[in-house]
C-alpha cells in the first residue's frame, strides 16, 4: 500500500455510506496489516496516512449492519 492509496481510501470511506459494510472486513484487515508490520520499508508517512484512514473508516460506519460487522471482526481479534 502507498500513501496515495491510503489517502484515497480515507476519502472514499467517508462518502461510501451503507455500501461500506460489505467491504469493511477487507478494507480494515488491509489497513491493520500495515500498522502491524515491523519491517523498515513501512515509513512514517505511510503509517500516519494509514492511521488517518483507520480513523476515517471507523467514524464513517453509520448503520447497524456495519456496526455489527465491525464489532464481530474486532471481538474476534
Amino acid at each position, binding site marked *: 500500500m502507498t500513501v496515495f492509496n491510503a489517502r484515497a481510501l480515507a476519502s472514499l470511506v467517508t462518502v461510501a455510506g451503507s455500501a461500506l459494510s460489505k467491504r469493511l472486513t477487507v478494507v*480494515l484487515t488491509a489497513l*491493520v496489516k500495515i*500498522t*502491524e508490520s515491523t519491517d523498515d520499508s513501512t515509513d512514517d508517512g505511510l503509517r500516519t496516512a494509514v492511521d488517518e484512514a*483507520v*480513523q476515517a473508516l*471507523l*467514524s464513517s*460506519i*453509520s448503520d*447497524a449492519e456495519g*456496526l*455489527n460487522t*465491525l*464489532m*464481530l471482526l*474486532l*471481538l*474476534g*481479534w
Partner: protein
Amino acid sequence: MDGEPLSVGIKVLLLIAICNRVKHDAPERRVSGSKLFKIFCEVSELDASLYRIDWVRQLVSSMDDSVEAVYVTAWNAFDTLVKSIPKDDLDALVVPLRRTIESTGVPGVPVPGFSLPKAISAFVPIIIAGLTTGSNEQRENAAYAISDLVERTSEDAIKPFVVPFTGPLIRVATQAGTFPPAVKTALLCAMETMLLRIPALVKPFFPQLQRTFVKSTSDPASVVVRTKAAQALGELMKYQLRVDPVVTELIAGAKSNNDVVAGSFVLALSYVIKGARENVGEKAREASLELVSDAFKELHDGYFSNLCCAYLPPLIPRFRILFAIHCCSFCRSLSIREPYGFCYQACIIVAR
C-alpha cells in the same frame, strides 16, 4: 422467518457464542483489536451499547494476557469504553464485569493488567454505581467484584482504591437492614477479603468494620450472614490490641438474644478468642467461661449448647476440667434425651 437477514439480536447471540471463545493467535492482532475499538469509542457516534457487555468480557479477560502490549492496550480500551458510557447505564455492567473478573486469573496471583498503575480506576465507576444505586443482584455482584479484584491485584496497585471501595461498602452495609441476606453476605465477604489480603491498608477503617461485624452478628434474618460476620470479626481481632470490649459486647449479645441468634454470638466469641489469642484479658476470659457455665444451668436450644461446647472450651485450656465437672452434673440433673448427645460431644472435646 421469511428469508429476512438475521436479526441483530440473533447476530449478537451468535457473536457471544463464537467470538468470545477464541482470541487471535498473533499478539499483534490482539493489540490491534483493542486499539481499533478504543479509536472507535473515541470517534464514532453510533450507539454500540448492544456490544458493551461483550467488550467488557473481552477486554477484562485480555488483561490477563501474557504479552505486555496486549494487556496494556486492553486496559486503555476498557478505560475509554467506561468513560464513554453514560452514568445511568454503568450499573447494568456490574454483573458481567464481576463474572469476568472472577474467571480471569486465579485468586492470590496478581493479574498483570489489573496491577498497572491506576488500573483499578477504570473499574471503580461500574462497581460503585452497582454498589450504591443498583438492584439487589447488582449490589451483591459489585461487592463480590471488589473482593475478586482485591484478590487479583498487587498491593501497590490497589492501594489508592481502598478508600473509594471501603467507604461505600461500609456505608451500604450500615443501611443493610433493607437488603436480602445474599447482599449482606457479599458485603461482609468483600470486607473480610480486604482484611485477609491487605490488612495494613484497611487499618483506618477498623472501628467501622468492627461495628459493622458486631451488628451483623445479630442479624435476625439469616444464619449465613451471622456466621460470615463472626468469621470476619475473628479475622479483624488478629490485628486489634484491645479486644476486651468486643468480648464483653458479644457476651452481652449472647445473653440477651434468643438461642438461635445467641448461638451466633457464641460462634463469634470463639472466633474472636481464636483470632486475638493472648490479647484477651483475664476478665474477658472469666466472663467467657461464665457464659459457658451458665449454658449448663438451663436447657437451651441444641444449636446454642452445641456451639458452647464445641467452640469455646478448646480455646481456653484450663477450662477443660471445670467443663467436665459441669457437664457431668448437668447430665445427671436432666434425664431427657438431648443432654446425652451434648454430654457425649463434651466428653470427646475434654478427652482430646
